[in-house]
């Protein structure tokens, strides 16, 4: 048996608490992620190694052989695919840290409602969740980038610009996925549908495994709206010197920024509304 002795209302410094709210939500998410550290590390390293070995040695051998050793545009198939794999990993890794947590918070355990009862505002919950996903994104692009270097799939000089542009694509896509998840009332096959109707086609039809121009014109539009293609295109300019136009580069980055802003603009009001229900 123990009794509590405290003077009610003395412990909390309100101004400080309101200032650090988003960071405290991120802290919670990171602590939660840390419970899965072995899976996160295994996937972070295992996934790129497996893809690179499989694509580089396997499909790469077939492609390089049938193109007479020239690969695509004069580079090996592995070098051609590398920027796409990196961007795809950044997008997937980051967005996983918003989709599941948002469904968990609103629908499964409803834990967001507990956070919403504290000093923290709905906006700060959004920012905190996103911040933690961003940390995961940095880890993903760094490990993936280093492994690409080890496989000699990208040149050293392009390392930083490439991981940065992939991170930007991941940021834009993650904001959009956060908005989508915030709108989901119950998960009735949500992840299966998103995975198979959005993520799989995006992965397959974004000029990932061969130039977009080789696809029939009626499928090329998937690439144009796909953040993965935009990111891959930037990446190929950086790594294999693919020719480009200045305006196209502007479009690519504008697209990431637009997804980022749009994603947040559609997330904030939903969080505010659902938390007040």
């Amino acid at each position: 048996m123990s009794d509590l002795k405290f003077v009610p209302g003395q412990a909390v410094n309100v101004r400080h608490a309101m200032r650090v709210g988003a960071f405290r939500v991120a802290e919670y998410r990171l602590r939660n992620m840390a419970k899965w550290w072995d899976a996160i590390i295994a996937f972070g390293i295992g996934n790129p190694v497996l893809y690179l070995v499989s694509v580089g040695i396997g499909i790469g051998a077939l492609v390089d052989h049938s193109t007479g050793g020239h690969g695509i545009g004069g580079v090996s198939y592995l070098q051609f695919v590398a920027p796409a794999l990196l961007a795809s990993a950044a997008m997937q890794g980051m967005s996983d840290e918003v989709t599941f947590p948002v469904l968990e918070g609103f629908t499964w355990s409803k834990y967001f409602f507990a956070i919403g009862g504290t000093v923290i505002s709905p906006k700060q919950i959004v920012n905190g969740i996103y911040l933690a996903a961003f940390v995961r994104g940095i880890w993903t692009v760094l490990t993936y980038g280093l492994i690409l270097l080890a496989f000699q799939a990208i040149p050293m000089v392009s390392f930083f610009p490439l991981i940065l542009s992939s991170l930007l694509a991941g940021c834009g896509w993650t904001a959009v996925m956060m908005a989508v998840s915030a709108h989901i009332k119950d998960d009735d096959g949500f992840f299966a549908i998103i995975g198979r109707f959005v993520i799989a086609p995006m992965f397959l039809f974004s000029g990932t495994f061969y130039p977009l121009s080789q696809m029939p014109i009626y499928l090329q539009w998937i690439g144009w709206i796909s953040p993965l293609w935009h990111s891959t295109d930037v990446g190929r300019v950086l790594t294999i010197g693919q020719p480009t136009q200045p305006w196209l580069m502007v479009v690519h980055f504008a697209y990431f920024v637009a997804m980022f802003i749009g994603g947040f603009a559609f997330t904030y009001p939903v969080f505010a509304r659902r938390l007040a229900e």
Partner: protein
Amino acid sequence: MIVAKGLSKVYGEFRAVDGIDFEVHRGESFGILGPNGAGKSTTMKMIAAVSKRTDGELTILGKDPNLKGPEIRAHLGVVPQKDLLDRELKAWENLYIYGRYFGLSKKFLKPKVEEMLAFAQLEEKRNSKVEEMSGGMQRRLAIARGLINEPEILLLDEPTTGLDPQARHVLWDRLFRLKENGVTTVITTHYMDEAEQLCDRLVVMDKGKIMAEGTPAGLIKDYSSKEVLEVRFGTDRNEATAPQLATIAERIEVLPDRILVYVEDGDAALEKIHALGLRPVTSLVRRSSLEDVFLRLTGRSLVD
């Protein structure tokens, strides 16, 4: 601490809370009693400064929750109806992380978490995940969590719903200690025994309105008699017997399975019934409770 005037919450056409007035004073334990759907939880969410009112006035700790939500919530402790614990985290982590949301430092929280685990009698479950704990333990953890920021007001929404009798008594004991320590509490409940145990003062709500207000004893005195005689004549004969019983009592209520006879002296009333030549199948004399108050006010039972 809390002042509400004409407080209303409307969802579309539905008036969940319909112009209620009440005040909660410092150090008091204030109850909102009513059946499911009476508007208790909606009122609670407005007091918790998460749901905005549609109409009327509400000040909590002297501030308007529509404008100063975070500042008010900084000094509230909330124990939601569905505990809303993080199931991936251990017991102590749930407390710790929640404290972090209030901007509290690690240095402050380290001893605080242990103190709260002791208060909730969960020291042995310190490193257990939430799903490994019983319902009563989870509820105690939720209460400990609500106290981690040393709040001025603790809000408890249906604190013992879904718990077995023994777990309820453990919880009541903990809440009673809090009251002794001067924490202001607001409790919603649909159990009248709980309201009688825990509340200094309470309001009875039904259909979004406040039907009555007072201390548990005062309400019983105002709206019921001292004792109640419950008699059963069998389902088909209750109705027919009622007019005769009405002659010997201040008031009677005919329920489907029994008749409640409101009198000052139950045993004397039972003798009068026998004298009338009536033979009830069973009979029971008890003291009036808040259940009777509610029945009087609304014509319905609290728990159906």
